[in-house]
């Protein structure tokens, strides 16, 4: 049940126990127990909402920043990653294989704030060797959801 439960929740975290129990064909109590276990084990890390900020009047700029760093003795990349991810404006930090080391997602109100973060906070960290900043111009798909997708049912209304 675990995999299927996670797959449902990943798409719809607002679904309630009763409906989960119906869809999965198990008792509500069992769903409850499994959810508790998943949270306790840190498999479920949060319940978020996917927001298309572009449609609001709220200004947001998102940048993806490639960061090259020198790993620190005994701690590898973890220490430097921590120094970066503790900033609340940093939305995501991934350790990446290939041409650079860390991929940082940064969300601010303006371009200027992003530029400021990179030059004042990121580049000045001792172990940061270089950065490359990419601004997101448009989100087509995020977290598996196609943004602005209109789904019209084009099937014939009755078919055998």
């Amino acid at each position: 049940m675990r995999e299927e439960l996670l797959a449902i929740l990943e798409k719809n975290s607002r679904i309630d126990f009763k409906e989960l129990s119906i869809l999965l064909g198990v008792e509500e109590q069992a769903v409850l127990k499994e959810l508790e276990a998943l949270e306790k084990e840190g498999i479920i890390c949060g319940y978020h909402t996917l927001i298309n900020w572009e449609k609001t009047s709220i200004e947001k700029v998102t940048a993806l920043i490639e960061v090259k760093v020198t790993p620190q003795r005994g701690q590898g990349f973890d220490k430097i990653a921590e120094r970066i991810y503790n900033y609340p404006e940093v939305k995501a930090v991934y350790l990446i294989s290939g041409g650079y080391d860390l991929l940082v997602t940064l969300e601010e109100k303006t371009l200027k704030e992003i530029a400021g973060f990179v030059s004042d906070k990121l580049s000045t960290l001792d172990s940061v060797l270089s950065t490359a900043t990419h601004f997101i111009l448009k989100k087509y798909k995020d977290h598996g959801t196609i943004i602005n997708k209109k789904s019209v049912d084009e099937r014939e209304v009755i078919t055998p």
Partner: protein
Amino acid sequence: MRNFLSEKVTSLKPSGIRKFFDIVSEMKDAISLGVGEPDFDTPWHIRDEGIYSLERGRTFYTSNAGLKDLRKEIANYIERTQKISYNPDSEILVTVGGSEAIDIGLRAVINPNDEVIIPQPSYVSYEPCAILADAKPVIINLKAENEFRLKPDELINAITPKTKVLILPYPNNPTGAIMEREDLEVIATIIKEKDILVMSDEIYSALTYKNSHVSIASIDGMKERTILINGFSKAYAMTGWRLGYACAPKEILSQMTKIHQFAIMCAPTTSQYAAISALKNGDSDVEVMRRAYNQRRRFLMNAFEEMGLECFEPYGAFYVFPCIKEFGMTSEEFATKLLMEEKVAVVPGTAFGECGEGYLRISYAYSLENLKIAIERLNRFIQKLRN
């Protein structure tokens, strides 16, 4: 002027679905649960392969039997899912949907007045195709108390010295019924004893919710007397690509290929390239869709239970077949009234045979959100009738 029309064709009953279709099409804001095809888009890698084949200019006829690579993949698929070995060179034919396979399969084996046994409720094309092939259809009225499975005594009662073919329509459209290995074994014993051929329409084989589908051709001594029909429409959400296939002993398959060659030439080339990708890389897509169907199926069964609507639990395809006999209306009356009053379209069970009277086919090839709205309306309708 003379009447140019064929008596055989003009005397065919028009499809019961067609009639209802015309009423529903008139209604703008009706919610339909009447569709017999998946709501999912064809998985992208499959579409992409079709597009790529067009870009490379693969726009010619293929061999009559279909692309060799596709037939090989079909053979692999049947081997992997059913443990039956078919020779891709002589025992597999790629067709224009399962529909064509039903038609030419019957035409390849029927002599005038041979009898074809058709269990109903079942898909609308078996009976007309049998008639067009000059066979005499012999209908078995399946029973709800048997979960619409074919029972050995029902089969025995339908067999006469003229019986040539049994059509085995499982997993079933419209009932959602399945036949499990034990059910098939007793049927197979009778079939072998009475020396009958089986046409097994397994188009919904990938969509079962209990155990994996078992093909009757996998039972000892049955492969040589079975025309196995399957296709891409339901499992891979590829209805519009018009692609299916038949697997049969080579004596039968070569005659089917002859008809196919003269009537069709070959199945659509683009679809054949796309289908290779479906069979090679599509298992996980099918599983995602199967799970979604299963969740909707459970949702509907639970909703029926809550509203006290009688329905056996179906384990296949994407249909439920609730009983509406308590309301003292025919299926058609019920469906029409439901459409007029609550704007929900379902298909009267009678569209799939007379014994579908008293039942409705409800398709769950719809999003949960859609199903929820429709069920709410259905519930309101039923409570009104009961008061």
